[in-house]
């Protein structure tokens, strides 16, 4: 009986993965992944995804709490893998027999070739099912084998995949002649790893991982709180240093990507003040960004729309100040609006700004659809800070200053007033906190960060077009502070890298960026709502809340009265 129950669970979970695979195929992601090879002519990312679906199904076939034995695990894994492959095989048969492409544009003959490994429907489906079984078995085996081996294997495979996917970037970084060039040529060919290269990466990664693990074990006793904190700070510091030096090593394109990341970090810190600290859900944040950008544009551009022709360093403070003013002006009317309604109200304000900036009505001042062009780059004496790398360093410095300001604000009286505001407005007011002042300061200071980012954005693009200021940007910034960790500065950096940097680097997958985005938001909110690198306070808050909720729900788990 137990056996049957196990199988049923395994099949159910496997089917879920299978459904996920079908979704990826029907949406066109699978074929797109297939176009990126990991190992040239041998393994594409699409094929790897199919395999990993099976492996994952096998690994999670049975939950721990059912405490299955090894044999059951392996059997369940195999069954789950088979169940995962079944929907995909069905899809392949469907594509092959019915003309589905007229409705579902992604079900092309190329996709069929991928699914059946170009073996025709019969053998191809058989291979899928067999492969699924095997993959599921491997997944279960991974689950069962000792953790040391498992983590090493996973690390090594991940390294190979990353080396294959980011091959362009890595090749860009290794673009020197000589010994480094030789390394590059052994590992890579034009668009992927060579088989030898894959093996090398695998072995090296496994070795490094093992060494790390052994080194860690020899450390002895577990470190205490203070040491842990210091370790985290050191790790953060090193990461930051690497980030700062990368453009120099890796060239202008990385500099460009990192600069975009930096701008979003700036904006994230600003929104963090509003949302993370003060609890004011602002979806109209892009309006402040636009104000900063347009102010800089109108004060510096070499175009008939410009009001003045200042230099960047003079225009930037003016942009920031104007953004603060606009922030306060936006905040005033919506002071009394709360919660979800505030989100929608601020979104409306942001959209109003977008419409105005694009409109013919405001065109004499703001340039309308043509935007404002010919914005000069900043100058330091005789040097024009023109290249992406140089501007990246400008952004880095600005972020550093902003981070410092944000950090000091967090620990100040104002910061604590904001946190009280976020928890309960009425109580905060009863405690004597001036709601109006605190809220307006939150909007204003948050807007200042966005204005600064907008200013740098304008000079980076040398032109501002109204199409750059969509609602999507506000949602991006909100998402990155949520995914990274609200209320936490390292979280903002991490969120920006993950949500902004990665899609920029993986531009070939650009069409499906928002699909992954949406899925990531859903998954993050359910699994880890405090973010990837939350502040300590936040994590405690959120999980404390969970425990009480669980206790409440426990009442439902008691045997119910007969209806």
């Amino acid at each position: 009986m137990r056996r049957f129950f196990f199988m049923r669970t395994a099949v159910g979970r496997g089917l879920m993965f299978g459904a996920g695979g079908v979704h990826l195929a029907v949406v066109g992601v699978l074929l797109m992944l297939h176009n990126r090879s990991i190992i040239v002519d041998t393994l594409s990312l699409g094929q790897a995804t199919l395999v990993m679906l099976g492996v994952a199904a096998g690994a999670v076939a049975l939950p721990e709490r059912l405490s299955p034995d090894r044999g059951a695990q392996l059997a369940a894994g195999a069954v789950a893998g088979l169940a995962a492959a079944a929907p995909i095989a069905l899809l392949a048969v469907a594509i092959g027999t019915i003309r589905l492409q007229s409705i579902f544009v992604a079900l092309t003959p190329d996709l069929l070739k991928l699914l059946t490994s170009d073996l025709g429907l019969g053998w191809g489906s058989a291979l899928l099912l067999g492969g699924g079984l095997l993959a599921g078995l491997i997944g279960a085996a991974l689950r069962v084998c000792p953790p040391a081996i498992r983590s090493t294997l996973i690390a090594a495979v991940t390294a190979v995949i990353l080396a294959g996917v980011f091959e362009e970037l890595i090749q860009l970084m290794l673009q020197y002649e000589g010994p480094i060039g030789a390394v590059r040529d052994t590992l890579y060919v034009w668009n992927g790893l060579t088989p030898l290269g894959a093996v090398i990466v695998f072995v090296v990664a496994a070795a490094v991982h093992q060494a790390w693990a052994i080194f860690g074990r020899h450390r002895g006793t577990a470190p205490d709180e203070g040491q842990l904190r210091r370790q985290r700070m050191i790790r953060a510091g090193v990461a930051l240093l690497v980030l700062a030096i990368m453009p120099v090593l890796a060239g202008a394109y990385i500099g460009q990507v990192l600069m975009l990341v930096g701008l979003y970090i700036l904006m994230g810190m600003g929104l963090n003040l509003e949302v993370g600290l003060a609890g004011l859900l602002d979806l109209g944040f892009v309006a402040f960004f636009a104000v900063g950008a347009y102010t800089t544009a109108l004060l510096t551009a070499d175009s008939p729309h410009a009001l003045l022709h200042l230099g960047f360093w003079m225009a930037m403070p003016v942009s920031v100040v104007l953004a603060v003013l606009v922030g306060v002006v936006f905040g005033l009317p919506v002071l009394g609006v709360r919660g979800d309604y505030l989100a929608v109200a601020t979104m409306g304000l942001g959209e109003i700004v977008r419409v105005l900036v694009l409109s013919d009505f405001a065109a004499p001042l703001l340039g309308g659809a043509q935007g404002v062009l010919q914005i000069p780059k900043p100058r330091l004496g005789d040097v024009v800070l023109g290249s992406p790398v140089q501007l990246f360093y400008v952004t880095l410095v600005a972020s550093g200053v902003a981070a410092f300001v944000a950090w000091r604000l967090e620990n100040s009286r104002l910061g604590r007033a904001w946190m009280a505001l976020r928890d309960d407005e009425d109580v905060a007011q009863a405690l004597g906190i001036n709601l109006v002042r605190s809220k307006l300061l939150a909007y204003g200071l948050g807007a200042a960060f966005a204005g600064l980012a907008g200013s740098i954005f304008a000079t980076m693009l040398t032109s501002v077009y109204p199409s750059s200021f969509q609602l999507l940007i506000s949602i991006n910034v909100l998402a990155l502070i949520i995914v990274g960790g609200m209320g936490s500065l390292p979280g903002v950096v991490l969120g920006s890298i993950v949500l902004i940097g990665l899609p920029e680097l993986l531009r070939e997958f650009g069409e499906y960026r928002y699909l992954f985005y949406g899925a990531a938001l859903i998954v993050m909110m359910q699994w880890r709502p405090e973010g990837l690198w939350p502040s300590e306070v936040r994590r405690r808050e959120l999980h404390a809340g969970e425990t009480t909720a669980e206790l409440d729900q426990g009442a439902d788990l008691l045997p119910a009265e007969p209806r």
Partner: protein
Amino acid sequence: MSATAIDRGPWLTALARINAVDIVLWALRIGVLLVVVVGTINELIKDPYTAAQWFDFLMFGLTLGSIYAQIALGYTMVYGVLRLINFAHGDFMMCGAFAGYFVATPLENSGFLDTHPVAGMAAILAVAIVVSTTIALLTERIAYRPFRRAGGLAPLICAIGVSFFLEQTFRGMFGSDVKAYPSPSWQRSAFQFGSLQIPRVDALVIVLAVLFMGLLYLIVQRTRMGTAMRATSEDPEAAALMGIDVNKVVVFTFILGGAMAGIAGVFYAFVYKQVYFYMGFEPGVKAFGAAVLGGIGNIPGAMLGGFFLGLVESIGPSVFLDGLGIPAPYQLRDLIAFTLLIMVLIFRPQGLLGERMAKKRA
């Protein structure tokens, strides 16, 4: 106020309490009022439109409004029961429209839709309802159930995530191009009343929308499930204590809301003859504004709000924006909708027909 304050009289006391915020809010009210009134007066003086054209504006506004009203109903019901702004609701509408498209096109090509209008429409609506309801239920199960009445940011962000996910999934499945909806012959002509004209499709949409909404109202008011829904919306804990299965109520709400969204999608597609993966987002947001305008959680309010918003969007730019001499007033059409939304949220968040919410939201 100290107990020993001299009684300065009620007026002076009130004056003393005015601060900058009040001034700003009053300035906002007066500003918007001025814009509307001055613009309208100017336009009426210019009098560029014939009576027939005013009637056209009215008809288009009502058509658009009926679509907004149907979407708003879904929003308002879900918000009432779950306290969640379901950002993905507009996308349910899109799903329904797409499903209808794949039924309507072969029906039109084979001529069936031309010869059997009622059967054809019924088939299209049925498929659309099934698809949008299924997606609504799946969304509820996967994305919203863990957040029952949690409040805060997480459910909102999750809803935004669902919205993206649905849009991009449909984009991946069906392409990013704009698909033209078939236009059967019985929709193309217009009813004539003297010099006034109503395009057939508009009349159809308005009448059917009102019928469906009436049906919904009856379901909510008269059936047991409907009563359970209203009870849960008012006070979920008390409802649970009375033996109402909240899960079932939520599922029922999503079924109703999803169905209405699907119907709205088909109507939208028939009137505007296009489906496109991003078509749901903007009408969704505006419909939410309409729901708030009418009073969130209030079904007749959502209908009222929807029609009102549709009329304002249709008439607004031509009347008061043009009256102020603004060039290309239709670009600023969204501005009107959003200003209306913001004004409602600031000055009357309970909407035209709603009651003041007793409990503070997150």
